[in-house]
């Protein structure tokens, strides 16, 4: 079974910084980083106007379906997806094999600029993910951060369901 995905504050801040930078440099409306399982990790820009939970789940579904297509024709993956709308466009790419980077932009930017900036940002993001992976491995041996869930009681769980 795959290990849990744990995100600590330090890396969260770094991811958010990287996304902020990407949003500025690519002149994008909003930038999201999403786990391949459909959970949002971080975001930057004008995110309030979007239903981010739905966006994350649909993007992950989209990427999963496209991955399936790639395998059918003998490709390892399609690393970039682009959806062109009348005003807004979505650029989707895979980062560090496990995350999805989504850039929403309009005609104040261009596909070329977004592609260029995404490439550069991906390098930064990959480094952060590497650190996260190392921390997760260490956590499995001797917890630097003790899991807050090791002490969950049955009462805690029952309380969640209002019993």
């Amino acid at each position: 079974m795959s290990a849990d995905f744990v995100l600590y504050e330090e890396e969260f801040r770094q991811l958010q910084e990287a996304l902020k930078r990407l949003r500025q440099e690519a002149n994008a409306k909003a930038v999201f980083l999403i786990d391949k399982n459909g959970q949002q990790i971080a975001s930057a820009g004008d995110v309030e106007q979007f239903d981010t939970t739905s966006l994350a789940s649909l993007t992950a579904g989209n990427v999963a379906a496209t991955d399936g297509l790639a395998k059918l024709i003998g490709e390892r993956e399609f690393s970039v997806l682009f959806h062109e709308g009348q005003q807004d466009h979505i650029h989707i790419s895979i980062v560090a094999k496990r995350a999805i980077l989504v850039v929403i932009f309009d005609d104040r930017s261009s596909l070329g600029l977004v592609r260029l900036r995404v490439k550069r940002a991906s390098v930064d993001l990959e480094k952060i993910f590497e650190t996260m992976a190392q921390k997760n491995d260490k956590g499995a041996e001797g917890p630097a951060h003790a899991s807050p869930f090791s002490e969950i009681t049955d009462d805690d769980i029952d309380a969640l369901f209002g019993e």
Partner: protein
Amino acid sequence: MTFINYASKEINCKIVFYGPGLCGKTTNLQYIYNKTAPESKGKMISLATEADRTLFFDFLPLDLGSIRGFTTRFHLYTVPGQVFYDASRKLILKGVDGVVFVADSQDERMEANIESIRNLEQNLQEHGFDLATIPYALQFNKRDLANVTPVDVMYRTLNYKREPTFEAVATTGVGVFDTLKSVAKQILIELRKR
């Protein structure tokens, strides 16, 4: 794969409703959606065909409140039940934390139930999961119909590992939350073990 975010103090878990075509997976989610307070749920998304059959998945994000200061969020998904959508079904199981199997109680659907559990077992294996160890609940749906198989027969035929089993009528909500609670509890207990 549970996503624990220490920065925003959130735990995110994924529950998948599995079962043969027309067994009531989407109806389970719709009932949960209708009965949950607006502040505890997000939008329910259904990717369905024009005939209202699930094409890819239904999705419902649920906020169960907080546990030890962490907001506990469950993402509920259904799979498309029709046999020929197997490739899509497989994709939905990616990163799953717990499974609900919705069985159709009607006599003529027993074969379909058995086949679907076998399919679940196989598809889980392809993602490196084992039905024998993953948090799992079984639901006998449509108990209100006339042509249903007796519960003890269904239990002997479909119960995999003495998992918690519930009789349900998803259209009116009987057993729906009991099933959900059971699998959610198992996920949290699993989290405690790690």
